[in-house]
C-alpha cells in the first residue's frame, strides 16, 4: 500500500491505455509519454502492462506501508527518500514508512513513478488509465489517497541505471503530412515545416494548443467529423493548431494538416507552456 501525502498540479494513474474502443467514443488514453512509462516498468521488473503514476510538474510526496522498489523516469526531478537523494532512471528502495518527496522538474513536464508490482486500482474497459477528457478511470490523486500495489513478477531487472538523453530546449518534432493537408494553402503547409510555434498554457493530456503563424485554409467548407489519432495536428478556423495527446477526442470536424511521428510523441508529452518548438517533415513511410 502507498499513501499519498501531497500532490503537485496533477497526478494520475496511467498504463498503456484502452485502445480498441474508439467506436463507442472512448479515447485510447494511457501515459502521455509511453517511452518513459515503459522504461519505468522495466527498471523495477514489471510487465509492460503495469500501471504507474504520471506526475505533472512534480510535487508528489508519498509513504510506503511496506518495503518497496520504485523508479522515476521522464521529466527529471530532484527527489529524496527520508531526505536522502535518489537518482532518476534507476531503481531505488523505499523502506516501510519512508517518505518519498519529489521536487519540481528543471525540464520537461511529466515524470513517471513505477512501483514493483504495479499500481493496483480498478480497471475500466481493460485499463487502469485516467482519461481527463471523459473522466474514465480513477480520479486524479489527492492528499490522503491510498493505493494498492500488485504482486511482483519473478524477474529482477539487471540494471542500476538507464542512460537517458537530456530533453532538448527547442524540440523539433517530425511530421507526416495529411490526411487533410490539401485543405490548406501551399504556404500554410510550408509554414508548418519551417516556422516555430509556442506551447500555450491552454494545454493538457487532451492536447497542446500552439501559438504561431496562422495556417491558412484553401477550403472553407465544413469537414464532416472523422476519426482522429494521437499526434494529429488539428487546425480550427482560427488557424492555430492543436497537437493531440493521449486523451484526444476520438472524432473531430477540423482538418488535420499533419501527424507527428510516433517516435517523437514522448517529446511532445514533455513540452512545457512557453516552450518553443518546430516541425520538420519526415520522409513519408507509405
Amino acid at each position: 500500500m502507498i499513501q499519498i501525502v501531497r500532490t503537485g498540479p496533477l497526478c494520475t494513474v496511467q498504463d498503456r491505455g484502452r485502445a480498441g474502443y474508439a467506436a463507442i467514443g472512448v479515447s485510447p488514453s494511457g501515459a502521455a509519454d509511453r517511452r518513459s512509462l515503459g522504461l519505468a516498468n522495466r527498471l523495477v521488473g514489471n510487465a509492460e502492462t503495469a500501471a504507474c503514476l504520471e506526475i505533472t510538474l512534480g510535487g508528489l510526496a508519498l509513504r510506503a506501508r511496506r518495503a518497496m522498489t520504485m523508479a522515476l523516469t521522464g521529466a527529471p526531478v530532484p527527489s529524496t527518500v527520508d531526505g536522502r537523494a535518489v537518482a532518476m532512471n534507476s531503481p531505488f528502495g523505499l523502506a516501510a514508512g519512508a517518505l518519498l518527496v519529489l521536487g519540481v522538474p528543471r525540464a520537461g513536464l511529466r515524470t513517471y513513478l513505477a512501483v514493483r508490482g504495479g499500481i493496483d486500482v480498478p480497471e475500466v474497459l481493460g485499463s487502469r488509465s485516467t482519461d481527463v477528457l471523459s473522466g474514465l478511470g480513477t480520479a486524479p490523486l489527492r492528499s490522503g489517497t491510498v493505493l494498492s500495489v500488485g504482486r511482483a513478477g519473478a524477474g529482477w531487472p539487471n540494471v542500476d541505471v538507464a542512460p537517458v538523453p537530456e530533453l532538448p530546449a527547442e524540440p523539433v518534432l517530425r511530421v507526416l503530412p495529411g490526411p487533410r493537408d490539401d485543405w490548406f494553402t501551399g504556404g500554410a503547409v510550408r509554414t508548418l515545416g519551417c516556422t516555430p510555434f509556442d506551447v500555450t498554457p491552454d494545454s493538457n493530456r487532451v492536447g497542446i494548443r500552439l501559438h504561431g503563424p496562422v495556417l491558412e485554409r484553401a477550403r472553407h467548407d465544413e469537414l464532416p467529423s472523422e476519426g482522429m489519432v494521437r499526434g494529429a495536428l488539428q487546425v480550427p478556423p482560427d488557424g492555430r493548431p492543436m497537437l493531440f495527446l493521449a486523451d484526444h477526442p476520438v472524432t473531430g470536424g477540423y482538418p488535420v494538416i499533419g501527424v507527428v511521428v510516433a517516435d517523437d510523441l514522448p517529446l511532445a508529452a514533455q513540452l512545457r507552456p512557453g516552450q518553443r518548438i518546430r516541425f520538420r517533415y519526415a520522409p513519408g513511410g507509405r
Partner: protein
Amino acid sequence: MITVIKPVGEHAALVELTGAHGVYELHAALRQRPPAGMTELVPAARTILIGYDPARTSFARLASVVRELRPSGVATNAGRLVEIPVRYDGPDLDDVARCTGLGHDEVARRHAACEYVVAFCGFAPGFAYLGGGDPALRVPRRAVPRTRVPAGAVAVADEFSAVYPAESPGGWQVLGRTESRMWDLTRDPPALLAPGDRVRFAAVSR
C-alpha cells in the same frame, strides 16, 4: 463506395466513402472480417479510420485488403425510441437564429419536431451523432471552439445533432440543455444511445 484511402501518420488509414450508408456497410464488413494487423475502427459521417500495427501490416497492404472487401447489403435495424427532454435556452440560440433566418422559438420548434437516428458514436464516451434533422437548421461549427461545453448540452453542427455526455471542449452550436445522462458507468450499457436508436427531443420550460 470507396473514393480514396489516405495514410494518417504511421498507424492509421482514412477510408473516404461516398455516403453514410457506405460507411455502415464497410464498418459491418470490417467487423465481420477484420484485416490482419487492424487495431482500431472509427466509423464517422463519411469516413472510417482504421488503426493498424505497422509490425503486422502496412498502409499499402491494408488499403488493398479494404478495397477487396465486398460488403453485402446489411439490413438496418429499427432501433428503440429514446425521448430526451430539453430546455431550449442555449448560448448559441442567437447565432443559430441569425444564421438560419428563423426566430428562437422556431429554431426550438423545428429541432424538437424531428425524429433522429443515431448514425454513429464518437468524440467522447456516450456521444452519439444524430442524423435526420431539419435541413433548415443546418449550421456550421463555431469558428473558435469553446474550451468548456457543459454536460447535457444539446448542440448542432452540419447535418447532426448531439448531446454532450460530459463537460468537454467543443465546437458545436449549443441550443439548450438536458438532464438526461448520456453516459453512466453504473448503468448497463453505460451509453444511453447506440447506432440505430431513434431519438426525439421534447421541449420543457423552466
